[in-house]
């Protein structure tokens, strides 16, 4: 029981890191980035390839899994995304679906369509028993790493000048603009993409390897996290992700016959009752 709860929390934390970048793009730029999963896929590939082909230890690949997608994010933001700020949602959806459709065959072409496995180092692959609760070491690792990221992000948003500007811009872009607040969007985009990449790298083992269909397989899950959490804040996304993670894992364990219904059901119910998200502040304007 507690093991399942813990697995759920770990899964939720993972979802949070994967989706937090998306909630920033959505909240800050009102940009519906359906290609978010592609950045996660890149991160996963970076880790898998560095480990399997170059023999780099797992931990050492994680910074690269953050940096490379972040860099890619900057390049794409400068060349493509920025042209679509303020475009209609339909255009954004079409554009990012187009990107996903391009990313998948590219991955397939260079790396083949079989899943690239991330082989965990020995010190992460066992499990410990703590007060009678079996805890997988890797999931513990995920909880710790993702927890640290969440804390860092929250501190960053609350304590720094940039964070305050970001929050202001997310709350009301127009007023923030009028006050002369000029948020550095590239930076936010880069961090979001980097976090997605890191999430992809961490998730690779849990979801059974990274393959070219990753961006589509998890697209829906990301969107559900953001929808449930509400798109204007890190904490909302965190709670949304945890709720979803626990419900999903517990649901698949206790009532496998319902399986994936639970998360979709939760999403639809959430959208009916609170379209602005469960944890959003205010009335969702």
């Amino acid at each position: 029981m507690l093991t399942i709860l813990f697995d759920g929390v770990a899964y939720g934390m993972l979802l949070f890191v994967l989706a937090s970048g998306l909630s920033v793009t959505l909240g800050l730029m009102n940009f519906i980035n359906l290609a978010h999963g592609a950045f996660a896929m890149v991160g996963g590939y970076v880790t898998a390839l560095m480990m399997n082909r170059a023999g780099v230890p797992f931990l050492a690949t994680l910074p690269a899994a953050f940096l490379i997608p972040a860099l890619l994010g900057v390049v794409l933001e400068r060349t493509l995304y920025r042209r679509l700020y303020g475009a209609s949602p339909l255009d954004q959806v079409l554009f990012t679906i187009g990107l996903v459709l391009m990313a998948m065959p590219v991955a397939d072409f260079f790396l083949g369509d079989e899943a690239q496995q991330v082989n965990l180092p020995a010190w992460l692959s066992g499990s410990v028993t703590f007060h009678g609760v079996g805890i997988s070491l890797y999931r513990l690792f995920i909880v710790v790493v993702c927890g640290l990221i969440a804390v860092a992000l929250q501190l960053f948003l609350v304590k720094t000048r940039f964070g305050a500007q970001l929050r202001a811009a997310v709350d009301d872009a127009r007023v923030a603009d009028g006050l002369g607040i000029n948020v550095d969007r590239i930076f936010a985009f880069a961090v979001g993409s980097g976090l997605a990449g890191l999430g992809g790298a961490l998730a690779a083992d849990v979801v059974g390897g990274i393959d070219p269909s990753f961006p589509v397989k998890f697209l829906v899950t990301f969107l559900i996290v953001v929808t449930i959490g509400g798109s204007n804040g890190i904490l909302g996304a965190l709670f949304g992700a945890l709720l979803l993670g626990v419900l999903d894992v517990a649901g698949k364990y206790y009532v496998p016959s319902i399986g994936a219904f639970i998360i979709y059901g939760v999403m639809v119910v959430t959208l009916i009752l609170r379209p602005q998200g469960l944890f959003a502040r205010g009335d969702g304007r």
Partner: protein
Amino acid sequence: MKAQKSATIQRLEAHLHRRARWRVPEIVFWVAVLAAIVALPSRAALINEILVSGLFALSLDLILGLTGIVSLGQAAFLGLGAYAAAILASAGYADPTLGFAVGAAVAAIVGLATAPLLLRGGDLTRLMVTLGVSLLLGELANRNGWLTGGADGLNFSMGKVLGLFPIGFTGQRNAALYSYVVLFVLFAVARRLAQSPFGLALAAIRENRLRADALGIATGRRIVAIYMVSAAYAGVAGALLAQTTQIVSLDLFDFHRSADVMLTLIIGGAGYLYGGLIGAAAFVVLRDVISAATPEYWEFWIGALLVALVLIGRVRIWDFAGRAGSVLSFKPVRGDAA
């Protein structure tokens, strides 16, 4: 003042009447499609696919192009219609007409039930709700294998259309003709609908829902109504697909179906009804050509096309096409369809 106003109204009425008339290019279009079916029996399967995709894209055009509601879950109704027709046929009621009527009815009912969800929140919420509903239905079909055949799908045989014309592998041309007739009738209805006061109200909602509200248009009810009609159209498309291929599988509910149909509509241009049909022809032929050249990577080129389309600007392309000679009766929507 009064005289001026009535002159305006007269002009408007004359304009609406002009718009309602079937133009020569439209008639040529439909005759050409019919001729293609008759003249190219060896390509009948491909033409049938185009016709069915065209009907599916038309269903999306009703809500996206006419009303400006963005949906990523049109596959829900395609799947519902297809499974309704397939289950009916497997149960022994193999009459195709009955099949697509039931498919349309089932899709319409579910459309009516889920439409109120569209009235809340912004575009993103709508995207998510429609996507969520289609995924839920897909999962439902997956779990209820006793009814839907689960991951194996259903294989069934169809009766003859009106008891006369066999469709399916032995009668691919009949199948294409059957799809053609259904598509034409439904298109004519949609065309009429678009030009009715109801259609004009939808256009008002698309241009500015707040102002439409202020004008006294019951926007909520209009949206629910058109969503239901659109669902029924998609249901018929699903039923036709199931009947003419005599197989259904779970991928009908997939995300990529919803994305493909949106792509189809965008290629053809949203908002003037023919866009879906032209887009379907372009999409299916394009996919055929590209996948013949690079069977595994055709998606890449479709994606590249999509990105290019958005970056160059859908509106600009259609303005250009409009200037280059307005091919069909009414102009594509100016401004954004969303």
